[in-house]
């Protein structure tokens, strides 16, 4: 083990809070935008459907790095002020992943059986009550596994904040690079291990939420799976 191991870990740890805040902030914004866009795409009003669809297509169709550059470097020319790096990062992470999340919400709401809608109408529930008390509690459980994948994508994307100098872990590793040449493998390994641990934390939390949600619906919670095997969601990563 290199003599610099302690130094490397303590330096990378300095960037950990920024990575965590960017991820948490991004996740919070993603959840809000996902529901707004997802429910918006199912709205009865054509204008709302159109605006939601426009947002989703724009942010899924352009590259996240381009969005980051646009909001951090180009937007200030339009509005006259520049966002603080961390805040700009949260905005981009949220806007980008919210667009992917919108499709998750839309799909999950549509997957709730029709009879549930009809039953809620028969019980004379208002449109809002139908959504909040009948449809969403069932849909949310379906959303959790794809959101797990999405949040891990978001965590990984937080590394892009190195381009706007937000001071997160990847940037610290870039600062260490010129001075710690011989220990470069160690520097990057430490960073990757931290990301891996954060990804595992996200998965563990989401699994727990899924179990709680399934239990509240009276479903049998799925058996415990290995933390690492997440299964795949081909459309969570690509395509319009």
């Amino acid at each position, binding site marked *: 083990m290199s003599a610099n191991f302690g130094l490397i870990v303590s330096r990378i740890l300095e960037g950990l809070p920024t990575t965590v805040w960017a991820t948490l902030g991004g996740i919070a914004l993603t959840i809000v935008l996902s529901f707004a866009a997802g429910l918006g795409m199912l709205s009865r009003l054509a204008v709302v459907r159109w605006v939601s669809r426009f947002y989703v297509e724009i942010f899924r169709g352009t590259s996240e790095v*381009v969005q980051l550059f646009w909001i951090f470097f180009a937007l200030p020319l339009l509005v006259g002020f520049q966002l603080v790096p961390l805040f700009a990062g949260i905005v981009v992470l949220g806007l980008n992943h919210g667009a992917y999340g919108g499709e998750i919400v839309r799909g999950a709401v549509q997957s709730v059986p029709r009879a549930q809608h009809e039953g809620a109408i028969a019980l004379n529930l208002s449109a809002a009550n139908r959504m909040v008390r009948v449809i969403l509690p069932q849909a949310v459980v379906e959303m959790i596994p794809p959101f797990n994948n999405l949040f891990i994508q978001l965590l990984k994307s937080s590394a892009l904040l190195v381009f706007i100098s937000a001071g997160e872990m990847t940037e610290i590793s870039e600062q260490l690079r010129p001075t710690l040449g011989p220990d470069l493998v160690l520097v990057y390994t430490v960073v990757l291990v931290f990301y891996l641990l954060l990804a595992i934390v996200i998965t563990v939390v989401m699994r727990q939420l899924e179990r709680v949600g399934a239990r509240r619906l009276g479903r049998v919670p799925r058996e415990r799976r290995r933390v690492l095997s997440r299964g795949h969601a081909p459309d969570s990563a690509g395509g*319009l």
Partner: protein
Amino acid sequence: MTVDWSWHAVAEAFPLLLRGLVVTLEITVLAALLSYVLGLVFAVIRMSRIPVLSQLTFLFIEAVRSTPLLVQVFMFYYVLQSQTGILLSAFLSGVIVIGVHYACYTSEVYRAGIEAVPKGQWEAATALNLPRGRVWTSVILPQAVPRVLPALGNYTIAMFKETPLLLGIGVLEMLNRAKEYGAETFRVLEAYTLAGVFFLVISYIASVMVRRLESRVGTL
């Protein structure tokens, strides 16, 4: 508020970005090909249940999928350069890292496709006493691969949208060209907006093609 937008700058940046776009597309195509081949290799290794090797492949896939592509790019490029003396261009390093990263995703796609091949096909191939290699190449894969083409297409679009992060190691792809132009002329707004439009148009066309492929997969 008046928006200072210059169409002249757009016209000026256009050919520059087009040059960058060629590089972006080259990286996308090469990385995609690598991910198609390597992903299949990973999937077959994992499913063949070769002791140790299968488990190692599984761990590798999960570790790569859970960590940022950008850090992997930095690690591969700088470590190779400073510790082994192998000089690999930033372009080629980018292709390799994006290709390997996405192979970990495509291997899951292949796995799902292979698992969707009915069990009877395996049994029939065994009954015919086909050698193990022949079972894969003549029976299972010809049935599995067409089904996974749309998913591979979606990942190719994802790879296309990841290429701009290679500006971190100095690859002169489209966003880097836009950045260059912005630095020279201070026309940042036009340059980045144009880059965004290019990405939007191409990924839109590509996704329409993937959707078409999707509707045809049943007949393949």
